[in-house]
């Protein structure tokens, strides 16, 4: 007696293929969605940084206007101009230095927790038509203010007899 064997697609093979295809499609779709989502998040972060930069620029322009108003006021009197100049440091956040050729006024405006917009102005020693020249207007990394918490221990010198 010859036994007839059934030749054909076995039950379950289509299910296995389908499961494999669905898994592949699910993986690809999730990968593409994840990629698109991270792209969107990066674009949002980038636009937030742009907005923050221009906000800092607006604040820097406001401060510049304040400094210029001070220069405008003191330039009315040429005799006291030179002596009045250090008072520019009374404007909050403004630092003042004197070099050989001009006064240096600088200030910085925070952009984020890690960066600042740094502005430096050169101001002539005597009042002139051009009250200031902007020499620096750039972003810088925020300088960390390290706390000097060192213990006051004996350094091995100054032995008292």
């Amino acid at each position, binding site marked *: *007696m010859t036994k*007839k064997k*059934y030749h*054909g*697609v076995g*039950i*379950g093979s*289509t*299910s296995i293929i*389908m499961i494999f*295809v*669905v898994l592949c*499609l*699910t993986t690809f*779709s*999730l990968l*593409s*969605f994840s*990629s*698109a*989502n991270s*792209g*969107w998040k990066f*674009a*949002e972060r*980038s*636009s937030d940084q*742009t*907005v923050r930069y*221009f*906000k800092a*620029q*607006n604040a820097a*322009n*406001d401060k*510049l*206007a304040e400094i*210029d*108003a001070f*220069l*405008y*006021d003191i*330039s*009315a*009197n*040429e005799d006291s101009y030179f002596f009045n100049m250090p008072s520019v440091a009374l404007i909050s956040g403004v630092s003042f230095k004197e070099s050989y050729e001009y006064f240096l006024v600088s200030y910085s405006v925070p952009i984020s927790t890690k960066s600042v917009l740094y502005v430096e102005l050169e101001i002539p020693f005597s*009042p*002139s*038509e*051009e*009250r*200031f020249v902007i020499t620096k207007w750039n972003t810088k990394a925020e300088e960390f203010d390290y706390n000097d918490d060192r213990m006051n221990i004996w350094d091995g010198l100054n032995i008292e007899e």
Partner: protein
Amino acid sequence: MLKVNRRFAIRHLNSFFQEIIIVILFFSLSCAIIVQVFAKAYITNLETEEHNGAVLAASSFCEVFSVRGSLSGTVELLYGGDAVKFIYEDSVKIPLDENFCFSQSGSYYLTATTRAAYRESGNVVYADLVIFKENESLFEVTTSAYQAKGAALE
């Protein structure tokens, strides 16, 4: 014997078709969800591209405005002389195409409105910039420029 084999084959075929039907149903349901995820990814990509274009167009405008300090100077430099006619007093509404370049009839618009803080020594001119598409704002930013006046010399 032949009858038994035939009955077995029919039963086998029946269960095969049953499985195929279940597989097709499950596959179509899965595909409906997967296609939605693909579509969402595609739309997110398009929105990202649109957002990046808007940010780029706005930041270019802001950079030029912060140096020039006027709408006409900024618009002329960025979009050419033809775009100057879109300036109305202290505001401008420029149509932009899908590449955020100036075009006479675009789907995107760049609007900028200027205001100034006057001082005796000089003015700070602000420009409130919005890029929008069909009344939906894509990006908003405010920029400024300082314009110093002549010195008050004796």
